[in-house]
């Protein structure tokens, strides 16, 4: 199993969720995060002083999936989240050694 961790633009969340549903992914966990990268933040002003907000709001989607659909998952996220403009975000694939569903004690791929 893998944990597919995608950092995307917030307004793409709905589309990513739908793309994942379509390929049969039934669960995911979403975190509001702040991203720092090539996309530069904007300048804000407060009582006359300018300052740069480096961190941009992003959304992190964590999806645990079975080995065989990792490719499809990455693909689904990628095409749903892409705008082609800087700051679209990243996907990281991380190994999961075990997964457990708390409610049923199921483990392994059945749990996710």
């Amino acid at each position, binding site marked *: 199993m893998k944990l597919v961790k995608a950092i995307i633009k*917030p307004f793409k969340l709905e589309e990513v969720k739908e793309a994942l549903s379509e390929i049969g992914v039934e669960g995911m966990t979403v975190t*509001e995060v702040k991203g720092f990268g090539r996309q530069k933040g*904007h300048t804000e*002003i407060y009582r006359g002083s300018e300052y740069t907000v480096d961190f941009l*709001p992003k*959304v992190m989607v964590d999806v645990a999936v079975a080995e065989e659909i990792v490719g499809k998952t990455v693909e689904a996220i990628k095409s749903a989240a892409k705008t082609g403009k800087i700051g679209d975000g990243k996907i990281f694939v991380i190994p999961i050694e075990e997964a457990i569903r708390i409610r049923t004690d199921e483990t392994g791929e059945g749990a996710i």
Partner: protein
Amino acid sequence: MWALVPALMSLLATSSAFGQEATYETFMEGAGSAFFTVSNLWLLIAAGLVFIMHLGFATLESGLTQSKNTVNILFKNVFIICMGTLTYALYGFNSMYPGDFNGFFAFGSPIPNSFSGADVVANMTADYADYTYWTDFIFQAMFAATAATIVSGAVAERIKLGSFMIAATLLVMFIYPITGSWEWGGGWLSEPFADFAGSSLVHAFGGFAAFAAVLVLGPRHGKYQAGGKIKPILGHSMPLATIGVFLLFLGWFGFNGGSVLNADPALVSLVFVTTAIAACAGGLSSILISWTVIKKPDLSMALNGILAGLVGITAGADSMGPWAAAAVGAIAGVLVVFAILFFDKIKVDDPVGAISVHGVCGMWGTIAVGIFGGGSLLWQIIGTVSISAFAFVSSLIIFLVVKAIFGLRVSLEEEVEGLDIGEHGQEAYPDFQVASKS
């Protein structure tokens, strides 16, 4: 009669005719000055109450919209009160109360900087009214900006700041005084049409101006989705919205109560009662209807119901008893719920429900005077339709022209990001993690 003569020195410091000073003093020592003094005080206090309605609008509108547009909404409301008061001093007041005129339109001119000689008596005593010229101005000025504020809520979350500021200024400075002069300025509608405190002149005017603006502007991105699905765009703070409605309710005591234009005990107290009863009936009937129709007791509908009742009673607060007021308010509370659902169905996107509350219930309230308040039903309809139509058409023209010259909408990207960053480079709540902007 009055033992204590108020020191007028400072007021008259710049006035040349010292001999006239005695005359204001004479008046103040005379019999009529007690009622004059009380009435004048009441209108000033009422002006303060109407002023606080602007805070009510600011908090209501920002509560019912998204947190990424909060700075923008607050800024517009701050601008409107500043601009509204100054343009009214510069042009509007004298355009709306022109004295003798053709009954349809009059040019305005600045209020004077001071009065001297005989003018003091003419403008500062019962020769003028039950209040002074300055009182008259400030009370009316506080009303003036309301029309723009109503529009502000309806066009929120997508309009360019600069364009809005221009359109709002044109509307408040030049158009609002025109319809105002028709009735309150002694124009063609002054008789037998009856619109006590402005269900039509202020609220339907604002509501229909907002309607035109929204038609030109279009709905917010994502609101009306393919397949007829409506995606609600949630207001970000129900406490702010509730504060807004309570402050508006409070301010309405001044709005309606002050419109008696003196402190007559019987009439002012009747107006307080009808105003409160209509508001409460509107709130209750909205609760009932939304619970029945939408199946949940909806706070935003309850709040709108109170406002609906208040707008509804504004035209007839002085001409009916409490139970008639309850009927007017309760019907307004039902109307507003269906109006909001209706406008959403026809894809007129009004984030705060301004068109329904002010436009629809403003019309209803004016007509209700023909039913419960002893007015001529025909004239009430003629009046409210004329005013609403004029507001609609003028606003349509203004917003179309501003759109053609400056553009009206922010870019889609800015709309998604929020106008706070886009227009102001500021955030309303920098310490808080705000949810995904969509």
